[in-house]
């Protein structure tokens, strides 16, 4: 028995993007138990959505829940509001939503991978991934008009159309991105020091993932096939555009990296299929109805399942809006998966969870 140290990580730390506090109890730098405080970013958006903003404005507010997956939030809200006012978005709007969600997934996954690389002490790989990621930011800017916070999805449809020259540009940039992605896969798979750091770190078994209700790449890396895109629902026709489930078995940092990288290939395929088969229709379904009743919507954000519950009362204001972000489901497993690891791997493990605390605490 060595002496036990308590190591605090956060709320301000160079390896963290956002305020998050972990307290590790360690023995010879081996983590024995973990304590987490994830509610630094609680702002009270759920309350404001029901008292300060009308239901058509809320899709812009919920985009600000999280800057990384703002399109997933505004799309999920738009869908739940469409259910409440009993309309359906046009097919072209659905395809454009999927296009932006997949572009957003590319940028989010690459950011996560670069963050893992930096926290593992691999600065050059961080720079390389950030460089390759810039193309997705430029494409998002070309499609939506902003690098982050797209405000693309509105109640009833989407706000902007996809121009033909932008579509051509996306296809061209994807062509240059594909060999770069192969290069990243090669480095993440074969670099010896990176695999020393990543293999076996922060591992979680399939049983534990099931017991703790893990979602997203975190669960898929452990072998739990849970992906909302796999549903055959009519909200967004993922299967039409070539979705395929990606899973791994080991559940460690390495497997999570691999799942993210392989999902990027699927995303590229989806984007190509969408651009090839973009249907012609209106962009927005107009309605004058007010929200009534209650509805739930699930959507696959880059980090996992996003869940929206809304209840209307036939006025402009919603009665209740509940947002369940992907990281919220993962908090319990995040705390458990540290046990038994070196403190030195902890920053890389945190980055590989891809935690989004502004989603979690709203």
């Amino acid at each position, binding site marked *: 028995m060595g002496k036990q140290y308590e190591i605090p990580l956060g709320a301000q730390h160079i390896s963290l993007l956002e305020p998050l506090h972990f307290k590790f109890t360690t023995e010879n730098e081996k983590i024995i138990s973990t304590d987490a405080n994830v509610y630094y970013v609680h702002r009270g958006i759920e309350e404001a959505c029901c008292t300060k903003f009308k239901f058509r404005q809320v899709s812009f507010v919920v985009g600000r829940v999280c800057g990384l997956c703002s399109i997933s939030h505004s799309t999920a809200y738009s869908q739940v509001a469409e259910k409440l006012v009993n309309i359906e978005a046009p097919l072209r709007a659905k395809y454009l939503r999927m296009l932006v969600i997949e572009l957003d997934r590319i940028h989010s996954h690459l950011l996560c991978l670069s963050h893992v690389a930096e926290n593992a002490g691999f600065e050059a790989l961080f720079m390389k991934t950030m460089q390759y990621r810039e193309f997705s930011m430029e494409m998002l800017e070309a499609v939506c008009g902003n690098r982050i916070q797209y405000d693309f999805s509105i109640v009833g449809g989407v706000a902007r159309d996809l121009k033909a020259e932008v579509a051509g540009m996306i296809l061209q940039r994807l062509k240059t991105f594909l060999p770069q992605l192969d290069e990243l896969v090669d480095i993440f798979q074969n670099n010896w020091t990176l695999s020393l750091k990543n293999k076996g770190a922060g591992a979680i078994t399939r049983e534990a993932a*099931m*017991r703790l209700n893990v*979602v997203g790449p975190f669960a898929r890396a452990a072998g739990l096939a849970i992906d909302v895109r*796999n549903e055959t629902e009519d909200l967004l026709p993922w299967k039409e555009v070539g979705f395929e489930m990606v899973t791994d078995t080991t559940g460690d940092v390495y497997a999570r990296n691999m799942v993210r990288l392989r999902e990027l290939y699927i995303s590229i395929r989806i984007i190509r299929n969408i651009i090839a088969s973009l249907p012609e229709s209106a962009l927005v379904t107009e309605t004058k109805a007010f929200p009534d009743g209650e509805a739930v919507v*699930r959507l696959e954000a880059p980090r996992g399942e996003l*869940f929206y519950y809304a209840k209307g009362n036939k006025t402009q204001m919603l009665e209740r809006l509940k947002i369940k972000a992907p990281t*919220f489901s993962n908090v319990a497993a995040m705390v458990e998966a540290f046990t038994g690891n070196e403190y030195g791997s902890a920053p890389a493990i945190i980055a590989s969870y891809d935690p989004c605390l502004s989603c979690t605490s709203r």
Partner: protein
Amino acid sequence: MNKIETSVDSLKKDIGAFYKPDLHHFMVMNAVDLGDKIELQWFFCNYAFPSAVTTFYTLISPDTEVPDISDIVPSAWVAQAELADLMNINIENTKKGFVLEPDFESGPLRKKK
């Protein structure tokens, strides 16, 4: 959405009979303030039929003590701690102060009288 009514007393029995860890996925716990009553909801979905969402709901008065289901669903403590703070309801084994600072009036999501 498949809604099943339950009560505070039979909640643990109902969820315990329904929930299978390898079949069901607990999503979140939610509460809606209906004025004098609070509606509590527990959302589950199925891995095999992901579009089927099952909801357990019950109506309680604000001072009722709600049973803790984290011995059946281990990850439920996060949702319970958040709801206890935001709705100012009593949940068994759950301390307040997880979300809000101590100097803040509790229950911001409750209806203002």
